[in-house]
C-alpha cells in the first residue's frame, strides 16, 4: 500500500512538510568511521533542516541490501542516501525502477554516461589526498625532534583488511611519506577484520617494537586498539574518519595527546550540504570533494596544534596547497592490481 | 499397624511412550526379611523398584514407609529415607577409580579437599567386611563386569541402607562370590536390614529368601512364603507353563577344527600379560565352555577371537585362516558371531529400534537390498525374531532402550544366532534372562551345535557351562589351567577349586594342546 503514499509525499514535501531522508548503510553504525559519519550527517539534517530522518542498517549480508533498498524506495522518503562502493550495483538496479525518487550515493559513483541514473547524485571524496598528508606528517615526525620520536625512519600502517579501499589509503600514505623522505620505511599490517581491537593493539605493538614512531590506523573499530597500543608504548598515532582524539578527550586525555591528527572524510557535512542544496547539485553526475573543497583533510584540533611543531605544520600546509593546485598528483590504490600494490609495499619495507 | 516397613499400594506406571509397565501393583516387605521379586523379562520388576528408589515416579498409587505415606522424588530422597539400590545395569562412572565411585556423594573431606586416604580406607574396609574384593585404585573402565557388580553392591552397602534393593546382583557373579554375598545378606538381615532381591535363578531364591512376590505382565500375581512353594510352582506362576530345566542333549561327534588358538598372548595397555600362551581348539559340533573367575583373561581372549583387539604372540586361526590382519567384518564373514558380555556397551545401539539392532551384523548382505535397504524384508525378519525369542515389546519398531534388561539380551542373542554361525562366541548368553527364555536359548545353542557348528561358551553361571559344554576349560591367571570332558560330569566343587587356581590338570597345557581331551582332575 505504499504507492498512494508515494504520490502524496511528492506534493506535500514541496508544500512545506518536513523533508524525509533515509540513510541506508551496508553494515552497522558504531564503526567510529565513515558509516558513523554518514549517520551523523542525518543527525545534522534533523537538527539544522528539521528533516525527518531514518537510518537503516542493512547488515553485512549483501543479499539483503536489494530488498531493503527497494522497500525503502517504495516508502514516502524524499531522498535516499546510501554508500559507499559496496552498494553501487544494488543502487544501479534499484534507482531506475523508482525514477521519482532521489538518491544520493556517497563515496562511489555509477555509470552516469549511460544516462540511466538521472535521479542519482554521487559525492566522491579524495581520501587519498588526505592520506597523502598523513604519510607526509608521519615521515616528518619520525625524523623530528618531537619528544617521542626516535629518528628511526620507520613509520607504520595498520589496516583492517587487505582490501582495495584500505589499500587506497595505504598507497597514498606511502606516496606522501616518500614525498618528504624517499628513504622512509613503512611497516604494513592488516588485522584481518574490522572488529578485533585487541588484535589491533597487538599489531600496533609489533610495529612499535620494530621501531615505528608513528602508526596510521585505518581499521575502523579495530583501529581503536592501535590507539591503545600507542598509549602502552607512548608512541604517536594517526587516526581516520572520525576525530579520534576527540573521542577520548574527556575519558582518556593521555591517549588523545598521542593522536597527532585524524584523517577525515567529512561525509556528514557534505551530505548535509547536498541535501540542503538539492536543486543545485548535479544529478546524474558525480561531484568530487577533495582537500580543496574542505571535505577531506586532517583534523586540525587542539592536540595537533599543541603537539605537532609549527615547522611541520607549515610544511604540511604547503604540501596541501600543492595538492589542491594539482602540482602534486596523488595516486589512488583503487583500480590498482594486487601486484602493483605489492610492489609499492615492497619498496618501503623495513 | 503391621510390621511392613515398606508398602506400595495400587501403583501404576506408564512410561512416556505409553507403555504400562506396572498396573495397579501392591507390594510390601516386612522388616528384616529377604523378599524375592520374580517375573519374566519385562514383567515390570525393575520399574517397580525404580519407583521405590525415586528414579521413576508412579502415575498412580502410594508408597508407605514405616506406616506413613512418602513421596520419593529422587534417589537422593530415597537414600535419605534409608533405601539403597543395586541396579540391573551398572550405575558407575567408567573414568573414575573404584574409590571415587564408592564415595561419590559422600566424600570424606579434609580442609575442603577430598580426603583420598580416608576414602581408600573406607573402600578397603567395606570390601573386607563383606569379603567382596576390589582394587580401590583401579579405573572402573578397565574392570570386568563381575568386578563392577561387586562395586555396585559395596556402594549400596557403604551407604548403610535399611532397605536394600538388589536388582539381579548375581547375574554375573561366580558361585563363590554369590555364596559370599548371600552370607553377607543373611548377616544384614539378622541385623534388621530389609532386602528386596530380584533374580531369575530359582535356587538362589530358595536359598535365602523368606517371601516371594511374583509379577506377570505388569501385575502382581501373588505373594507367597518361599518355603510353601516349589521351584516348579514359581516358574509356572511366572511363565504360565512348566519349564524344563534339563535338556535332551545327545552325545556329540565333533568334526573339523573351526577355531584354533595357538599359544596366543595378550598384553594390556599397562603392560600386563593378560593371556599367556593359551592354546585350544573348537571343532564343528561341539560346545567348548570356559569357566573362570572374572578377570582371568576370558574377556581378552574373547576380544581377540572376535576381532575387537589384536594380540602380541601366537595365532588365532578361524576356519584355518589367521585373523590377525582381518577386519571384524572379514572375521564375521568367516562365520563368527559374538554375544558380548557387556550388552549395553557393545551389544546394542540403545537409541535405535529393534529392527535396526537386529540387522547390524548382516546389513551389507545383498539379501537386505543392494544399496537401499529393503525395509519390508527387514521388518518381516524382525517380527519373526521378536516372536521366536518372545521379546516383550510393542512392535519391532520400539526403541531398544525402552525394553527391559532381559529383553535387550534377547535381541542380541536373536541377532547373533540368526546367521547359524560356524563359530559362536557366547559370552554370558543368558545373563539376566528369565528361566523360560534361558531354556529357549539353551535349546538354540544345542540345536546350533547339532547342526555342526562350533560354540565357545563363557559364563559365570556354572550350571550353564556345566550343563551345556561338551568340553570344559578353566582359565586362571591368563592360562588354561584345567580341561575337562563333558561338563555334566564335573562337580561344582572340582570346578571351583580350579577356578581359584588351587588345582591344575596340566602344567604346560600350552605346549601339549594336541592330546588333552578327556583329562580329568583327580
Amino acid at each position, binding site marked *: 500500500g505504499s504507492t498512494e503514499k508515494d504520490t502524496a509525499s511528492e506534493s506535500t514535501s514541496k508544500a512545506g512538510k518536513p523533508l524525509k531522508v533515509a540513510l541506508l548503510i551496508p553494515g552497522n553504525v558504531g564503526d567510529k568511521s565513515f558509516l558513523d559519519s554518514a549517520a551523523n550527517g542525518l543527525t545534522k539534517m534533523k537538527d539544522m533542516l528539521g528533516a525527518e530522518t531514518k537510518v537503516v542498517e542493512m547488515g553485512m549480508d549483501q543479499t539483503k541490501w536489494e530488498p*531493503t533498498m527497494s522497500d*525503502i524506495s517504495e516508502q514516502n522518503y524524499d531522498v535516499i542516501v546510501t554508500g559507499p562502493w559496496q552498494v553501487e550495483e544494488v543502487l544501479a538496479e534499484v534507482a531506475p525502477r523508482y525514477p521519482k525518487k532521489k538518491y544520493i550515493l556517497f563515496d562511489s559513483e555509477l555509470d552516469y554516461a549511460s544516462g540511466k541514473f538521472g535521479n542519482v547524485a554521487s559525492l566522491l571524496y579524495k581520501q587519498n589526498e588526505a592520506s597523502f598528508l598523513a604519510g607526509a606528517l608521519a615521515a616528518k615526525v619520525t625524523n623530528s625532534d618531537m619528544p617521542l620520536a626516535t629518528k628511526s625512519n620507520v613509520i607504520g600502517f595498520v589496516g583492517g583488511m587487505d582490501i582495495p579501499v584500505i589499500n587506497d589509503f595505504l598507497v597514498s600514505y606511502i606516496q606522501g611519506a616518500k614525498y618528504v623522505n624517499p628513504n622512509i620505511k613503512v611497516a604494513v599490517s592488516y588485522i584481518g577484520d574490522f572488529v578485533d581491537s585487541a588484535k589491533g593493539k597487538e599489531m600496533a605493538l609489533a610495529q612499535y617494537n620494530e621501531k615505528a614512531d608513528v602508526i596510521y590506523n585505518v581499521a575502523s573499530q579495530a583501529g581503536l586498539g592501535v590507539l591503545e597500543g600507542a598509549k602502552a608504548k607512548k608512541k604517536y598515532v594517526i587516526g581516520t574518519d572520525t576525530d579520534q582524539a576527540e573521542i577520548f578527550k574527556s575519558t582518556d586525555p593521555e591517549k588523545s595527546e598521542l593522536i597527532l591528527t585524524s584523517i577525515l572524510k567529512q561525509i556528514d557535512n557534505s551530505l548535509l550540504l547536498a541535501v540542503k542544496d538539492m536543486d543545485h547539485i548535479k544529478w546524474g553526475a558525480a561531484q568530487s570533494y577533495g582537500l580543496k573543497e574542505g571535505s577531506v583533510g586532517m583534523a586540525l584540533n587542539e592536540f595537533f596544534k599543541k603537539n605537532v611543531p609549527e615547522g611541520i605544520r607549515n610544511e604540511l600546509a604547503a604540501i596541501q596547497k600543492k595538492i589542491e593546485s594539482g602540482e602534486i598528483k596523488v595516486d589512488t590504490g583503487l*583500480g590498482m592490481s594486487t601486484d602493483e600494490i605489492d610492489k609499492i609495499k615492497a619498496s618501503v619495507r623495513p | 499397624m503391621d510390621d511392613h516397613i515398606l508398602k506400595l499400594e495400587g501403583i501404576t506406571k506408564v512410561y512416556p511412550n505409553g507403555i504400562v509397565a506396572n498396573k495397579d501393583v501392591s507390594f510390601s516387605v516386612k522388616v528384616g526379611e529377604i523378599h524375592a521379586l520374580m517375573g519374566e523379562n519385562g514383567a515390570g520388576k525393575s520399574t517397580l523398584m525404580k519407583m521405590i528408589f525415586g528414579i521413576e515416579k508412579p502415575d498412580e498409587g502410594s508408597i508407605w514407609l514405616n506406616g506413613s505415606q512418602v513421596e520419593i522424588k529422587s534417589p537422593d530422597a530415597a537414600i535419605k529415607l534409608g533405601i539403597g539400590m543395586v541396579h540391573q545395569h551398572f550405575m558407575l562412572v567408567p573414568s573414575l577409580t573404584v574409590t571415587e565411585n564408592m564415595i561419590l556423594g559422600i566424600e570424606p573431606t579434609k580442609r575442603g579437599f577430598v580426603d583420598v586416604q580416608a576414602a581408600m580406607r573406607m573402600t578397603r574396609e567395606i570390601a573386607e567386611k563383606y569379603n567382596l574384593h576390589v582394587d580401590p585404585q583401579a579405573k572402573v573402565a578397565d574392570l570386568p563386569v563381575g568386578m563392577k557388580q561387586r562395586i555396585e553392591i559395596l556402594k549400596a552397602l557403604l551407604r548403610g541402607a535399611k532397605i536394600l534393593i538388589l536388582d539381579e546382583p548375581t547375574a554375573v557373579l561366580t558361585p563363590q562370590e554369590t555364596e559370599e554375598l548371600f552370607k553377607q545378606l543373611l548377616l544384614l538381615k539378622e541385623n534388621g536390614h530389609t532386602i528386596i532381591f530380584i533374580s531369575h535363578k530359582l535356587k538362589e531364591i530358595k536359598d535365602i529368601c523368606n517371601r516371594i512376590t511374583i509379577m506377570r505382565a505388569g501385575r502382581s500375581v501373588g505373594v507367597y512364603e518361599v518355603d510353601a512353594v516349589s521351584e516348579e510352582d514359581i516358574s509356572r506362576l511366572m511363565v504360565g507353563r512348566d519349564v524344563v530345566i534339563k535338556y535332551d542333549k545327545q552325545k556329540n561327534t565333533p568334526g573339523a577344527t573351526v577355531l584354533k588358538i595357538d599359544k596366543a598372548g595378550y598384553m594390556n595397555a599397562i603392560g600386563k600379560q593378560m593371556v599367556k600362551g593359551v592354546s585350544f581348539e573348537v571343532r564343528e559340533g561341539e560346545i567348548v565352555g570356559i569357566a573362570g573367575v572374572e578377570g582371568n583373561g576370558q574377556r581378552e581372549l574373547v576380544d581377540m577371537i572376535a576381532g575387537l583387539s589384536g594380540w602380541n604372540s601366537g595365532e588365532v586361526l578361524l576356519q584355518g585362516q589367521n585373523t590377525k590382519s582381518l577386519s571384524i567384518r572379514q572375521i564375521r564373514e568367516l562365520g563368527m558371531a559374538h554375544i558380548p558380555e557387556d550388552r549395553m*556397551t557393545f551389544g546394542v*545401539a540403545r537409541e*535405535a529400534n529393534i529392527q535396526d539392532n537386529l540387522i*547390524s551384523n548382516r*546389513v551389507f548382505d545383498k539379501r537386505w537390498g543392494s544399496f537401499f*535397504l529393503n525395509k519390508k524384508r527387514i521388518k518381516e525378519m524382525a517380527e519373526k525374531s521378536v516372536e521366536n525369542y518372545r521379546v516383550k515389546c510393542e512392535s519391532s519398531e520400539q526403541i531398544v532402550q525402552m525394553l527391559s534388561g532381559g529383553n535387550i539380551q534377547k535381541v542380541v542373542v536373536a541377532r547373533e544366532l540368526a546367521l547359524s554361525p560356524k563359530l559362536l562366541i557366547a559370552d554370558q548368553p543368558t545373563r539376566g534372562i528369565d528361566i523360560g527364555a534361558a531354556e529357549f536359548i539353551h535349546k538354540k545353542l544345542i540345536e546350533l551345535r547339532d547342526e555342526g557348528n562350533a560354540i565357545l561358551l563363557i559364563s559365570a553361571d556354572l550350571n550353564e557351562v556345566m550343563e551345556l559344554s561338551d568340553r570344559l576349560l578353566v582359565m586362571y591367571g591368563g592360562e588354561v589351567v584345567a580341561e575337562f570332558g563333558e561338563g555334566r560330569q564335573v562337580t561344582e566343587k572340582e570346578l571351583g577349586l580350579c577356578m581359584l587356581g588351587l588345582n591344575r590338570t596340566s602344567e604346560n597345557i600350552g605346549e601339549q594342546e594336541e592330546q588333552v581331551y578327556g583329562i580329568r582332575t583327580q
Partner: protein
Amino acid sequence: MESERSKVLFEIVRTVVTVAIALLLAFVFILIVSKEPSKALYQFMVGPFLSVRNMGNVIELSIPFIFTGIAACIMFQARQFNMIGEGAFFFGGIMATVVALKITLPMGIHPIVAILMGGIAGAVSGYFIGYCKAKWGANEFVNSLMFNYVLLYAGLYMLINFLRDPKKGQLSSFLIPDSAQLPKIVDGTRIHVGLFIAIIAVILTYLFMYKTKWGYAIRMTGFNAKFVAYSGINVAAAIVISQVAGGFLAGIGGATQILGMHQRFEWSTLTGYGFDGIIVATLARLNPAFVPVAALFLAFLRTGADIMARNSDVPSEVVLIIQAIMIILISASGFMAKWRQRMIARKSKHAEEQGAIAC
C-alpha cells in the same frame, strides 16, 4: 504405545503454544523499547507476507539454510561436531566463482559444473576432517573450527590474487557471466533455480540417511560407535562418508548462493550460514525431512526482523535478541512435558481398561 498421530498432534499443539509464548515475550520486549509496539510487531510477524517480494525474501533466504541444515544433519547424526559447514560454504562459493570466471562453458552446463566444483571443494574439506578423526582420532570440532579459517584465508588469497576486480572499491571478484548464473524462477522475487537443487538435495539426503545401508551405518555410529564396530561395520568409513557428504552439501550451498544471489563473489568473511545450518538442523531434530520447515522458519524470523528494523523504531540489535528468544523457546522440548505425560498415562490406562473389558 501411543500412536504416531497423537504424537504429531501433540507436537503441533506444543509448537503453537510455544510460538504464542515466544511472541508474547517478544511483544513485551518490543513494548519496552518501542513507541509503536503494535506496529513493530505487525511488521515483524506479518511483514514477510505483505508483498510477493517479501515472501520471496523468505524463500530466497531459506535456500542456503536448507543446504547447511542438511549438511549439519548428516554430520551430527554420526555424532560428529563438525563445524566445517561454515568454511565449506565459503570455499564452495569461491570455487564456483573460479569455474564461473575462468572456464567458458555453455549456458546450462556452466552452473552445473560450477556448483559441482563447489561441492567437491566442500567434500574435500569434509574428507580432511573426517579422515583425521577416523584415522587418528583428531578432534573434529577443533579441527573444523580451525580449518574454517584456513579455508577463509586461502579463499581470500585466491580472491585477491586471481579473481579480484580491481575496478571495485570493495573486495570482490569480476562479474559472474550470465552463462554461469542461476536463473530466477519467480517474477518479482530473486527466488532462483537453487531452490529446486535444495529440494532435491533434501530428498536425496533423506533417502540416503533413512533408506540406504550407509545411511544406516552413519546413524548407528551416532548412537553407539562401539556397537557398529563390533557388528563388523566400518566405523571409520561411516564417519568419513558422513563428513564428506556434509562438506559436499555445504559446498553446493555456497556455490548456489553465489551463483543465484550474487553478481560477483563478495564475501570477505565467513558468512555465518554454517552456524545457521546448525540452528536449522537442531530445530529439525537432525531429520533432513524437517529441514525445509525449520529453514523457512528461521528465514521468516530473519526477514520479519529486518522488515521490523527498517520500518519501525525497534533497533536492529533488539531483533537479534528476539530471534534468540524465539529459537530457545521453540526448541524447549521439556515444555509441557508433564502435561503430556499425564495425558499419555490417562490414555494408556484407559486403553488398557477397555482392553480388559473386551477380553
